[in-house]
């Protein structure tokens, strides 16, 4: 792997076993500055372990890590002010309010007073400033935890499953926060087991399973390389099945009570033909996703 000067993180062939469990088994990747990098995989894939080794929380059994050009292990105090970390389980001081948590973490990094409120506003928790951490909802805790990771304005941010266990609305809110951080020029390295989310947010994703990286690229490139068929669905009865089969580029047609589905590798002519026939009722176009990539790579359905 080439060590590019603008790489924020370079991980080379790291291994880590807990007893018999090979949690990470030869992982290499590098993250450019300003990149939004996702590590994607089902539970137990080795995402947290990979992240913790990159942060310097764990020493790998083998392999090397360069974080901002330095080794994060053993505890590298010079690096610490430049990295921000949200651990998988949120780490809060007992009995402190949201604002006090941020003030405490801020003071540890020598942040000016007032920074805490600024961060609360950024993650949309300003009105929860005086709420103790145990009275916050799951999504609010995650946002507070992210704010604590960002309070000292680090160059690199590590987030471990920031959206896990949240309802769809909270997840969307968090996406906005993450995009905002990215817009500030931060390098973000984050893990998730939501395929759709990684696809939306990440510049590049590494798909992990059983301690190994199976594929690493931009989500769109991964999907494109899959060369999977596109599925075009319509309200049944709007077009006779026979006619659908004869559309240019149609590979196969299935009908059930809910929809008539045309499978094609060239969706453009199919859609044009449908438009000419005014047969667009209930139109849904489903292209391949990262889930299909996972299925292709592992031979099994993706289950987070």
């Amino acid at each position, binding site marked *: 792997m080439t060590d590019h*000067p603008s790489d*924020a993180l370079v991980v080379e062939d790291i291994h880590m076993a*807990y007893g018999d469990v090979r949690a990470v088994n030869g992982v290499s990747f590098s993250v450019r*500055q*300003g990149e939004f990098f996702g590590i994607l995989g089902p539970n137990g894939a080795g995402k947290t372990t990979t992240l913790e080794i990159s*942060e*310097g*929380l*764990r020493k790998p059994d083998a392999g090397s890590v360069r974080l*901002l*050009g330095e080794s994060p292990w053993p*505890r590298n*105090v010079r690096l*610490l*002010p*430049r*990295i921000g*970390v949200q*651990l998988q*389980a*949120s*780490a*809060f*001081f*007992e*009995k*402190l309010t949201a604002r*006090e948590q941020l*003030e*405490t*973490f*801020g*003071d*540890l*990094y*020598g*942040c*000016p007073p007032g*920074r805490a409120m*600024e961060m609360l506003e950024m993650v949309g928790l300003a009105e929860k400033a005086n709420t103790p951490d145990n009275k916050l909802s799951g999504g609010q805790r995650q946002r507070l935890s992210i704010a*604590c990771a960002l*309070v*000292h*304005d680090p*160059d690199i941010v590590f987030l471990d499953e920031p959206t896990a266990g949240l309802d769809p609305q909270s997840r969307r809110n968090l996406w906005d926060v993450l995009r905002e951080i990215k817009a*500030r*020029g*931060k390098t973000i390295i984050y893990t998730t087991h939501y395929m759709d989310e990684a696809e939306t947010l990440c510049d590049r994703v590494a798909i992990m399973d059983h301690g190994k990286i199976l594929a690493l690229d931009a989500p769109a490139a991964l999907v494109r390389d899959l060369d999977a068929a596109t599925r075009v669905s319509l309200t049944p009865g709007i077009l006779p099945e026979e006619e659908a089969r004869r559309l240019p580029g149609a590979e196969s047609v299935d009908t059930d009570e809910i929809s008539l589905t045309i499978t094609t590798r060239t969706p453009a002519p199919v859609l044009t033909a449908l438009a000419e026939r005014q047969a667009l009722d209930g139109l849904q176009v489903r292209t391949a996703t990262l889930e299909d990539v996972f299925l292709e790579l592992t031979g099994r359905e993706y289950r987070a």
Partner: protein
Amino acid sequence: MTVTNEDVGQQARTETPSSSHSFKALSRAAFKGFIRDRATLFWTILFPLMFLVIFGLLFNDGGENKTELGVVGDGPVITALEKTGAVEITEFDSQDAALTAVQEGDVPGYVAVDGDTVTVRYAASNQASAGVINGLVDGVVNNANMQAANVQPRFTVDAQQVEDSSLEPIQYLTPGLLAWAVAMGAVFGSALTLVVWRKNQVLRRLRLAPVSPLAILSSRLTVSIGIAFVQAFVFIALALLPVFGLQLSGQWYLAVPLVALGTLAFFAIGMLVGSFSKTEESASGAANLVVLPMAFLSGSFFPIDQTPEWLQAVSMVLPMRHLNDGLSAVLVRGQGLEAILLPCGVLIAFAVVVGFIASRVFTWDDA
């Protein structure tokens, strides 16, 4: 390698983080965590105070142990007995009633005066009280006889009270229970903080922040010492109330270094307990296992000189024994600086040795 910071917003890190910053922030966090936790407040402040109140009231009624004595009739002998101040008199209407009371164990004996006859009956089971009663009645009757016969006594006894080493209950209960309370607060404070911070990942998070382990440790220790001073103040203030009647000696301020060093020693013990415990339950169990027997063996709840010699010797290896000795020397026995030198030395030695072991077995996380 250089990294350009493209953040256009306000620069967050205006100054390099200093230890004093971290120390203050963590002390504040630990202090707030402590005073907002009702359970901890109860166990460290109120619970030991309850012991002081209960023991103080139980052992303090009347202060002295007087022998009870039943009397029947009246006259100069009875009056003289009352004046000795050594017996607590219960009056009975008849000798039969008094005899029944003795037989039932309500009083250890009775004295009946009928004209010139003085009758004494006492319970066979209580030789000590019998001796006191016999001696007293003999003396009083002899005096009365001499006065009646107009004889000048040949021998006179000059008796005066001398302060001895045994103390009023409140005088040993206050330093003893205070030592126990300080030890409990310090052990629980450090052990539980360590376990909770390891469990809720705060320790790992702190490991990723530019903060020295020394700042983490000293901030929590400072809070513990502050709590110990509050405990000492509340304890002594309560014991000084007239109901309890503590007599504080003039050198009480020498308790300040003792309380601080006692907290230090027990804080170190708590660190060790916290290093070995995975859960809060096991930590508080282990802390109780260390502190409670130590308090009994060190004489926190009763005077140590009432225990067997060998136990007194063994208890010299316990830090709480020395904290007890030091506190009682300066709080109630009126001893000076020389009396706290050994206790302070022992407490410092304990803190250093136990603290060293604790730092060896310390882990940031439980993985």
